[in-house]
């Protein structure tokens, strides 16, 4: 636990014992190894300067997972960027796809059909739940609560199953398209979704029982790596971490996109900005996502009928071969007029933004992703200086640094 005041006050413990201060490397692990650091697909490493077991300084090492995302997508027609975009996220790649599509559609000044908007929102909340549960399981693993860990993993699997029901395909399979979505809900979706949401609620309640109400979790997480509102603003920290500090920032409410202005949900906030508040905020956000899922489901069943994709050359799927001109436009994708748009969505990790610039001809001039994980990783040293080495992993797990997004 970190203490207030100057952590380096007084003599260095190591030196007084006759040792020199040590530098320890923590991570990186391979993204596919699912343990604490990498539960978010994370090839992020740390160089920790230690005085005994106290963190004197911390250097966050990023970039190992850099794939030249922005260079790649700037070399392709607009619609072919999507498979790269979905790999920005971990369990919540769909959120990034929606953000990218909204930016490009806004640049082209087109609007997608109402049903597609509600379907996307449904997908977003299912993806958010899956990613939030992944974060919870990493936290539980980091503080040594195996029952809570497996409970959260169960939640992640169930949320992923809900997403699979919605999209009728596995993850990273390109359900979100420019101009709408690829497929509508399957037969019997309502019953299956109601059932899954009920189970998800039960799993969440169980997680609260075995983790939130658990004295050892409270002991580990209270006072862990605190960050004030002012620090959150200065470091541009967003998402659950900023909300836990008491900043009521949620893009879904502050600058509503899709149809978030038409659904009821609360934005939970904390007061201490410590690890325990972050845990509480994430748990509550899953509950709010379940609320939104219910509202989307009702709306899709009762009112929002009709097309799921824009019907315009370049934007809609070409189903048949009998119109070669239309097929050619489908291959080239939509033409995007000159201009630029910067917009953000509330991803599971925080404020995920896209800045897109078009010349009005062919390839994009610029596609830039504002990655919350990059800014959160940057703020870590200010949270952890003076803390105990043991605090590093739970803090990293709670921040849910996704290297696909951070390194791009």
């Amino acid at each position: 636990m970190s203490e207030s005041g100057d952590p380096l006050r007084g003599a260095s413990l190591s030196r007084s014992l006759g040792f020199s201060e040590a530098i320890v490397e923590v991570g990186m692990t391979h993204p596919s190894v699912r343990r604490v650091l990498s539960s978010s697909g994370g090839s992020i490493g740390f160089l920790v300067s230690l005085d005994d077991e106290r963190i004197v300084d911390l250097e966050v090492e990023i970039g190992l997972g850099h794939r030249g995302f922005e260079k790649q997508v700037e070399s392709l027609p607009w619609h072919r960027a999507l498979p790269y975009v979905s790999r920005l996220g971990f369990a919540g790649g769909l959120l990034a796809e929606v953000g990218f599509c909204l930016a490009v559609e806004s640049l082209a000044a087109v609007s997608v059909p109402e049903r597609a908007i509600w379907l996307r929102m449904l997908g977003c909340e299912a993806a958010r739940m899956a990613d939030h549960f992944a974060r919870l399981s990493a936290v539980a693993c980091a503080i040594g609560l195996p029952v809570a860990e497996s409970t959260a993993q169960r939640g992640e699997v169930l949320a992923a199953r809900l997403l699979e029901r919605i999209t009728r395909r596995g993850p990273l399979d390109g359900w979100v398209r420019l101009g709408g979505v690829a497929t509508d809900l399957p037969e019997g979706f309502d019953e299956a979704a109601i059932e899954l949401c009920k189970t998800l609620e039960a799993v969440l309640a169980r997680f609260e029982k075995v983790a939130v109400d658990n004295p050892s979790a409270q002991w580990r997480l209270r006072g862990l790596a605190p960050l004030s509102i002012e620090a959150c603003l200065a470091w541009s920290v967003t998402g659950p971490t900023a909300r836990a500090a008491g900043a009521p920032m949620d893009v879904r409410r502050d600058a509503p996109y899709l149809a978030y202005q038409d659904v009821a949900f609360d934005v939970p906030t904390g007061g201490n900005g410590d690890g325990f508040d972050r845990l509480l905020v994430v748990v509550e956000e899953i509950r709010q996502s379940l609320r939104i899922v219910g509202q989307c489901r009702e709306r899709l069943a009762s009112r929002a009928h009709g097309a799921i994709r824009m019907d315009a050359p370049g934007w809609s799927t070409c189903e048949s071969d009998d119109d070669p001109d239309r097929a050619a436009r489908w291959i080239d994708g939509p033409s995007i007029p000159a201009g630029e748009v910067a917009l953000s969505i509330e991803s599971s990790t925080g404020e995920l933004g896209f800045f897109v610039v078009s010349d009005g001809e062919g390839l994009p001039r610029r596609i830039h992703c504002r990655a919350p994980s990059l800014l959160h990783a940057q703020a870590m040293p200010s949270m952890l200086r003076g803390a105990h080495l043991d605090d590093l992993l739970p803090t990293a797990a709670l921040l849910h640094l996704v290297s696909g997004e951070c390194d791009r």
Partner: protein
Amino acid sequence: MTDSRDRPTADALADLEIQVAPGHAQELRIVADDARAYEALKRLRDDPEAPMQRLVDLTAVDRSGAGEGFEVVYRLHSPGTNRVAILRVPVASAEAGVDSVVWLWPAANWLEREVFDLFGIRFRTHPDLRRILLEPDFEGAPLRKDYPRQPDLPVPPEDRT
């Protein structure tokens, strides 16, 4: 189109002789030259009406080919009023660069390093300007338009199936 709520922020920049235009709702679009950009950003941050306490994003655009050069783009947000400002600074030369805003928003540190890394644009007075995503001995600035996208690497014969 001009929203009266945008005026105080625009007023704060009045004597700087820079171009301010209202964008979408609650959004200001500003173009400033290198000499005035730092002062304009500082005033936006300290504006009593809508302090832009948060640097949302910082990146660059390579407009070469369109008859222009690089541009550094700042995206600011005022959490109290939800107002947004986008400020663009045309960069005369990448080597000369622009002033670092780390001193206004610490969040700019890594964002400026990323632009330096991928565009080769220098940020004057940055305390730690070095590559961040690419390895230290990488040559070139890959997000520049004159940097070719690497061709797909040939698959070695033994890996072909």
